[in-house]
């Protein structure tokens, strides 16, 4: 004869134990959920923090110089006169040179990888190009300063000066003694650094073109180039532009490589062979040596300008890439 009372008490004990475990699990569940949510807010907070701290750091300079800060070329720490025009100009010109080279070359590499490369070679070449993106920027800097700049000084720059010397407008673009370092050198190095970004995104969107479209074009007798030109490129235009903008964002903000080879001169010169400066190079070079609140604040304002420019470029890039992802997926 089993004691029913004992069983029922055992059962109820088991039930309470079970309830306790469930409660604990529900509690830990909620805690885990809240912690993960906090981490998400953390990401938002960082962006907010970056903007707020840059703006607050930039306030003294903005109050002193106003909008003239954006249009003045003078940069004189001794008299506390600062203007951002030269660094902004340098940033835009170096990035333009970089994109001018990296976009066509990057696209051609992507075309090679997707259209004519034998399949077994695709992965190794793809990885090699991506390693180019993995090389730290300081390596590009030291390499650019000791190897690339002297090389340019001996070969490309005298050649450019000789060739374009007699032509009216171009002679001033390629004027002056070949220093080696300068805006052109920085732009060329940026081009190599941006190349992998353009290549890998273009390759990914090229791969996403429906094979049927390409087969149909080949079927009516198109050459490979015509398929790329009239089928692949129009179909992937948005994605390619997104990739290019992403690369542009990188080029605008790149610091170390540029700092090594640009020459750090706060002036605007028509010649791309002359030394110049960029926003990021100015900050990297001068920030630790900046004495006086206004000097520091002017450099932080430069940082804010850089952040705003790259933010806009990257936002456009992400928007375009999101659009093509939606269409493919």
């Amino acid at each position, binding site marked *: 004869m089993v004691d029913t009372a004992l069983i029922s008490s055992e059962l109820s004990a088991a039930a309470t134990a079970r309830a306790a475990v469930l409660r604990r*699990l529900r509690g830990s*569940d909620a*805690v*885990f*959920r809240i912690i*993960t*949510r906090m*981490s*998400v807010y*953390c*990401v*938002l907070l*960082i*962006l907010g923090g*970056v903007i707020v*701290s*840059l703006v*607050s*750091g930039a306030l003294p300079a903005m109050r002193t110089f106003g909008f003239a800060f954006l249009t003045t070329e003078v940069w004189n720490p001794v008299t506390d006169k600062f203007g951002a025009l030269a660094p902004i100009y340098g940033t835009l010109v170096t990035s333009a040179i970089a994109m001018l080279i990296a976009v066509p*070359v990057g696209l051609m*590499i992507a*075309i*090679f990888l997707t*259209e*004519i*490369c034998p399949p077994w070679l695709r992965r190794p*070449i793809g990885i090699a190009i*991506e*390693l180019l993106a*993995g*090389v*730290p*920027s300081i390596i*590009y*800097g*030291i*390499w650019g300063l*000791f190897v690339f700049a002297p090389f340019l000084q001996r070969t490309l720059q005298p050649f450019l000066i000789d060739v374009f010397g007699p032509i009216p407008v171009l002679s001033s673009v390629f004027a002056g003694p070949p220093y080696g370092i300068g805006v052109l050198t920085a732009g060329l190095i940026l081009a190599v650094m941006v190349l*992998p970004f353009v*290549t890998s995104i273009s390759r990914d969107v090229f791969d996403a073109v429906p094979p049927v479209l390409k087969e149909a074009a080949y079927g009516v007798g198109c*050459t*490979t*180039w*015509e398929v790329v*030109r009239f089928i692949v490129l129009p179909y992937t235009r948005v994605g390619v532009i997104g990739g290019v903008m992403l690369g542009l*964002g990188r080029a*605008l*903000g790149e*610091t*170390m490589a540029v700092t*090594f080879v640009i020459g750090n001169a706060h002036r605007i010169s028509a010649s791309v062979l002359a030394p110049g400066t960029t926003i*990021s190079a100015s*900050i990297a070079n001068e*920030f*630790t040596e900046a004495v006086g609140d206004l000097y520091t604040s002017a450099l932080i304002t430069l*940082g804010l300008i850089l952040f705003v420019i*790259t933010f806009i470029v*990257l*936002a456009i890039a*992400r928007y375009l890439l999101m659009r093509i992802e939606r269409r493919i997926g």
Partner: protein
Amino acid sequence: MNSVYRARRRRNWIAMSLSLVATLFGLGWLVLILAVLLWEGVGGLSLQVFTEMTPPPGSAGGLLNAIVGSLILTVLAVAIGTPVGILAGTHMAEYGRYEKLTSVVRFINDILLSAPSIVVGLFVYEVMVVPMGHFSGWAGAVALALIVLPVVVRTTEDMLNLVPNPLREAAVALGMPRAYVIRHVCYRAARAGMLTGVLLAVARVSGETAPLLFTALNNQFWGANLNAPMPSLPVVIFQFALSPYEDWQKLAWTGALIITVTVLALTVVARFLAASRKEQ
């Protein structure tokens, strides 16, 4: 064959040759950079580099304090950035996959992912170096952590999104609570991919210089004190390479070789991990 055909074939041939040339051009840079690094760096590579401090100009020395400093900063940055990143990625993929907040955060995270790293340095300078009154290893570690974070968030979210839903449903059907399912089922399924993300973040951080310039600064001496300026390999390279002293430049090349080999090895390992996962 008529002339139109010939012209089209010629154009095709030119375009395809150009694309081959472009590829060789791109690969050429990689080979060139690595070759110069090996050429300049291997000569200076000796045991001394790993056992002695950075020297004053004109005397012999190594890179020990810089290497150790870099290791400490990287480990700290990963220790701070990874947990937050994984948790945030978890929320975005598991709890709030269809929330508006998630797409906003994803957008912002993608921008932080490619934002100029020097701006991160300025931010940390403003919020840590100024209030503390001095440069410090902590500030450098936080700056690097802010670079680790978006990489980890992105890969965690992507990898968790790839975990098939039936796995989750099966686990939930056994009566497991949500947090338990995530930790013991989803994390396990996505482990290789998440590890890849962390490795890529380490690779990225170990070569970063810009955010350290005015957070961790530099230090000629042995420094395990995180409250003081801290040496790191990239900053030492920066300083030594731009110096006029030949022996410093030599050490800079050696340091550059060490960093590049480390970073590229990490990148390759990460890629293989990602590839082996894809094949499963």
